[in-house]
């Protein structure tokens, strides 16, 4: 390495060394420059994002619908398989055991094979079990319920037989009545007759039947007394079992729950809206609190600092603006609707002046009031004589925002609703052509870096929601206002945009 000795040439040495120094910038720099210079090329990526977002929502919607259908088909299959009467009949609040169930009761093994068995209708043979219950719970429930049912029916039958005994004093009648009683309850107890009645119950009945020859009242009443004792003990046992069966309580609760009015699902409350709002856009232009209209007192005369419109010789005109986007609306109550979505905004207004090809240095009123004479020589247009102003430039911004709103239903008619509401819209400004007025009001400086990147918009609107089948059409006026200045914090001039437009859209429930 060459060593430089001469101090006299120190500056030259430093300059040459510094001039030789190079660094390779990262690719991010070029991409950022490219995006700044060609903002329109961002649209494909924005559209792709919207497409992906819509795709994700659609896939989510389709999957949810499919899973519900599957569940319904499983439920139907299960109920058909177990041939359980009244399972699908939600109005049937009473347990109605079918003949199939009583003649061929579903035992624990059957429950195992049927993975989903609704407990919505408790049955006397105790074959119900909730799909959420474990298999063990199902078996316990089945076993307990069976026992309880057996005892219950046995007690009933014996009671009935005793009543018959009271009214029918002859053995034949008693026998017939007892048999008829059992037979009339055949549907309920056939299974129990086969194998569920315990031997003591059978004995009672058999004894009653067989011991009625040469009949006397006492003889007839003797077994009745015995039966009453048995009944008492059986009823005690039944009561004991009933108090120790939480699953049956659950079944009752489930039954009660089933008969409650059905809650609306989120799908019934939510809807998707697509809309567009063409509008007329203009701006307010004011000197900010720190505006210094006369940073170079020697060059420029003093200028008023309040109403810039009054001293601005340029013609500014309102122009067409557009908002478009989509949102998801959710009815949080009968009258309140909350909305959130994604929106693209194009804001615009016109400036009429004379565009020149001979740029002149100009200054912008910055917060500190100092000149930026070299920095801001970019000249868009100027005016020498307003009557000859013929060229038009547009003050444009491209924005993406997330509207978050709340709407109140004013009218609720059969075919249409009327809503009023508003939204806050955090907004990112990703491009545009701001023409910032110079401090002497003669020029506009077109400089992208002067734009504020983040802003906040507000919107107030009223619209009619017209219902046509599943689809709703909405239309109504909208007012939109920008809360912060279009320009960044270093620019003393504040410009706030506003739009008056008409929103049209379409919405559909999920």
């Amino acid at each position, binding site marked *: 390495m060459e060593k430089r*000795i001469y101090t006299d040439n120190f500056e030259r*040495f*430093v300059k040459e060394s*510094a001039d030789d120094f*190079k*660094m390779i910038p990262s690719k991010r720099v070029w991409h950022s*420059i490219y995006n700044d210079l060609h903002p329109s090329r961002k649209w494909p990526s924005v559209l792709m994002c919207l497409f992906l977002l819509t795709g994700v929502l659609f896939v989510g919607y389709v999957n949810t619908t499919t899973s519900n259908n599957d569940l319904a088909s499983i439920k139907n299959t299960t109920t058909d398989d177990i041939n359980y009467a009244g399972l699908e009949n939600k109005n049937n609040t009473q347990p109605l055991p079918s003949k199939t169930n009583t003649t061929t009761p579903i035992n624990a093994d059957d429950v195992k094979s049927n993975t989903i068995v609704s407990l919505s209708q408790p049955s006397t043979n105790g074959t119900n079990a909730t799909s959420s219950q474990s298999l063990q719970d199902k078996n316990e429930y089945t076993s307990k319920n069976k026992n309880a049912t057996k005892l219950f029916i046995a007690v009933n039958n014996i009671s009935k037989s005793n009543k018959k005994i009271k009214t029918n004093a002859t053995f034949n009648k008693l026998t017939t009545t007892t048999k008829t009683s059992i037979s009339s309850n055949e549907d309920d107890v056939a299974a129990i007759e086969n194998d569920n009645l315990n031997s003591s119950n059978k004995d009672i009945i058999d004894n009653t039947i067989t011991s009625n020859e040469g009949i006397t009242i006492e003889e007839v009443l003797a077994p009745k007394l015995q039966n009453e004792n048995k009944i008492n003990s059986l009823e005690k046992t039944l009561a004991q079992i009933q108090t120790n069966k939480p699953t049956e309580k659950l079944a009752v609760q489930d039954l009660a729950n089933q008969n409650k009015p059905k809650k609306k699902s989120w799908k019934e409350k939510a809807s998707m809206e697509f809309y567009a709002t063409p509008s007329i856009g203009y701006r307010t232009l004011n000197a900010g609190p720190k505006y210094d209209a006369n940073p170079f007192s020697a060059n420029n005369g003093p200028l008023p600092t309040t109403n810039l419109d009054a001293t601005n010789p340029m013609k500014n005109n309102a122009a067409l603006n557009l908002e478009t986007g989509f949102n998801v609306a959710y009815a949080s109550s009968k009258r309140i609707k909350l909305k959130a979505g994604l929106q693209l905004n194009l804001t615009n207004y016109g400036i009429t002046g004379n565009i020149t090809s001979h740029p002149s240095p100009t200054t912008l009123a910055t917060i500190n009031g100092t000149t930026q004479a070299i920095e801001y020589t*970019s000249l868009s247009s100027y005016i020498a004589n307003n009557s000859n102003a013929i060229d038009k430039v547009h003050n444009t911004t491209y924005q993406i925002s997330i509207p978050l709103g709340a709407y109140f239903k004013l009218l609720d008619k059969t075919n249409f609703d009327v809503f009023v509401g508003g939204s806050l819209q955090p907004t990112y400004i990703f491009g545009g052509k701001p023409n910032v007025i110079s401090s002497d009001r003669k020029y506009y400086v077109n400089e992208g*870096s002067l734009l504020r990147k983040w802003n906040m918009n507000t919107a107030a609107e009223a619209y009619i929601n017209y219902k046509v089948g599943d689809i709703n059409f909405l239309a109504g006026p909208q007012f939109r206002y920008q809360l912060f200045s279009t320009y960044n914090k270093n620019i003393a001039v504040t410009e706030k945009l506003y739009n008056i437009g008409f929103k049209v859209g379409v919405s559909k429930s999920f």
Partner: protein
Amino acid sequence: MTEELMIAGCLKNNASAQEALYNRFSPRMLGVCYRFGKNREDAEDMLQEGFVKVFTQMFQYRNEGSLEGWIRRIVVHTCINLLKKNKKFSDSLDIAYANGMHIREDMIPSIMQAKQVVECIRLLPLGYRTVLNLYAIEGFCHKEISVLLDIEESTSRSQYTRAKAMLEEILIRKKIILKPKEKIVYQAAVAPR
């Protein structure tokens, strides 16, 4: 691609012409930004803003002087404006702070000379560094510097003198340059005391 073609393409907002111009000049311009910036990220931000201005103001270039000089001037102004915007510059003109600053040997990287010199410049306080960059390297006069930085002309001069002395000391300690003879004589003269 020749400079004329690049300029013509840039005036038509042609992306490939812009990229060609960027590829040709960006390494040297990033070196300029690096001298002004706090770190590489700062420098790249300055470069980005500078080149956006270059492309959007290309119509102002009138083929008077070299294209590189014109681009460099825009980039330098962008650097100054960003420094002023971030208030880095005005906060760093404290001379007392600069005088008390201690340059450690290990702060200076040992790489190629250009890089070494630039890194030594970057060791200076921001105020010193900016004035030295503008005066010694970018060729501004003190009057222009005073306008650019909103300081007195005399302040610019004194800042430069101190910056130069400090940089010289750093370069000598790093043995990038040798001590001047008169200083050695001076040291020899005072040694017997």
